[in-house]
């Protein structure tokens, strides 16, 4: 019984949150990795692109809520998500036209594009805060739990509860659907293959009659969709706060680099590696250990390796280790 309780506690506090967080990071890292693979620069504005897409979703959600439209037990934000994606697509196409295309025509070096993307990041950062304000915004509604801790305890008779939030369930389902669609698109469609070809060998793609502007446009559209989905899921799961997306840049980049920049599969793996390390290292293991160890060995402290305040340090350390020992990442992407 103690062992079962330990497993339930572990699932409740580590596995489930890490899977949900990992899915969000994976979606974010996919966007970063696609931009890196195809447009060949690290897009620092990605976090704020997520913030912008989510902001549009939040605004549309509020509008729906005020009109009394709801999605039954599911959050209304899911209905608003397509509008958020469209808004975000418009935004990235405008920034591409206004900013990135100029540098592409100059054949600017990637490092210049990185700095340019930082400029875009600061502007977006301001725009989002100007529109919706810097504070926490709540927009989640519908059922809160798929299984609440109390129901679980009653069902199983265990003393530990297992709660699965609706948002966690939705996060995983939506992430799986998005990833399946993305891989189908990249591997099975002509446009997707053009994108892979362009990522593989730009010169040859051009000389094979592939129109670069078209590839770039589709890349931005896909990235906008991924960013909005990732941002909205994160917002539903935690809460929407513009600054948080800026902070998410670090774990997202860490995930993309750990997996291997330019490799979509790597981005997903990287997302989960980062999420699981972050959650396991900042979790207070006392609860699990109390069930597993004999009374005499019961720990007196929290057995928390690192305070949650330092959770971003985890991404940093993983990033450093990977860059030192395997710069191309787990899935042999392009070296940084």
């Amino acid at each position, binding site marked *: 019984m103690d062992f079962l309780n330990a497993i339930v506690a572990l699932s409740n506090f580590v596995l489930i949150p890490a899977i949900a967080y990992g899915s969000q990071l994976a979606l974010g890292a996919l966007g970063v990795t696609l931009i890196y693979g195809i447009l060949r620069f690290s897009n620092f504005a990605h976090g704020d692109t997520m913030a912008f897409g989510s902001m549009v979703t939040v605004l549309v959600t509020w509008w729906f809520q005020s009109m009394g439209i709801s999605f039954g037990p599911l959050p209304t934000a899911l209905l608003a998500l397509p509008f958020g994606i469209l808004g975000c697509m418009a935004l990235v196409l405008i920034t591409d036209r206004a900013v990135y295309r100029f540098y592409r025509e100059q054949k600017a070096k990637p490092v210049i594009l990185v700095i340019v993307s930082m400029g875009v990041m600061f502007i977006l950062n301001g725009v989002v805060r100007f529109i919706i304000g810097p504070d926490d915004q709540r927009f989640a509604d519908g059922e809160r739990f798929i299984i609440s801790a109390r129901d679980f305890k009653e069902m199983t008779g265990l003393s530990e509860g297992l709660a699965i939030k609706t948002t966690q369930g939705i996060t995983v389902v939506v992430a799986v659907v998005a990833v399946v669609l993305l891989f189908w698109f990249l591997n099975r*469609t002509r446009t997707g*293959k053009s994108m892979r070809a362009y990522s593989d060998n730009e*010169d*040859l793609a*051009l000389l094979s009659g*592939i129109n670069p502007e078209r590839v770039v446009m589709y890349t931005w559209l896909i990235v906008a969709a991924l960013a909005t989905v990732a941002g909205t899921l994160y917002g539903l799961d935690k809460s929407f706060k513009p600054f948080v997306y800026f902070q998410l840049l670090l774990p997202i980049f860490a995930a993309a680099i750990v997996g291997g920049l330019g490799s979509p599969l790597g981005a997903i793996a990287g997302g989960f590696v980062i999420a699981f390390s972050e959650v396991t290292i900042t979790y207070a293991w006392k609860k699990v250990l109390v069930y597993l160890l004999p009374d005499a060995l019961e720990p007196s402290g929290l057995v928390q390796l690192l305070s949650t305040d330092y959770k971003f340090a985890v991404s940093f350390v993983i990033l450093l280790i990977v860059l030192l020992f395997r710069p191309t990442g787990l899935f042999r992407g392009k070296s940084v």
Partner: protein
Amino acid sequence: MIAVENLHKHFGGFHAVDGASLEIAEGSITGLIGPNGAGKTTLFNVIAGVLPPTSGRVTMAGEDITGLPPHQLFHKGLLRTFQIAHEFGSMSCRENLMMVPAAQSGETLWNTWFGRKRIAEEERALRAKADEVLEFLTIEHLADQQAGQISGGQKKLLELGRTMMVDAKIVFLDEVGAGVNRTLLNTIGDAIIRLNKERGYTFVVIEHDMDFIGRLCDPVICMAEGKVLAKGSLDEIKANEHVIEAYLGTGLKNKDKIDA
């Protein structure tokens, strides 16, 4: 077919192509030779739209194509290969070939979702064509291999195959023979001659192997220091004193004589 008029390409103070003028006749296999650094590849790059020219004009069948981007030149039937073979490394050889023909239905987002049947038919036809090309090049056994893993010579053949997937008019081959063994080089040579005879491709070939040039090319153009030195049959070129001088490395002592 192609006329280049007084083309210049400068990199800072270095004049890689320095007033080259030449004409490529339709249906010919023209050889382009010259010592290293003569500006042959730069000339190719400018014609193929990879680099913008500093000045000068390139026309194709009377139409000005100076500075057009590569993918537009491709649709006009002007193709090129690279000195160091390029391939889409993560795709199979067959997929590499199937990438080439442009303007397929699968290219628009609408058709991606709603025109599945038409795309499937096109893909089937393309696949058959790709297999045919691989057979023509005698590398059909490599169809499902990742293109990044095949040998350098086979990559060169694959590059040639790429030009066969569309109706090319003129193909620029940049050192097809570099790092390729004799047997494979002969296969490549055979393929070039057949494409020229059977499909009417015009070829321009950069090559250092004189036997290969002698077998395929007439006329031969010799470049040095960014200029065209001489044009004629290989024997005429070999006998030309300026050409000998350029190859022996004494450089151009009497530039004005040549310009005249």
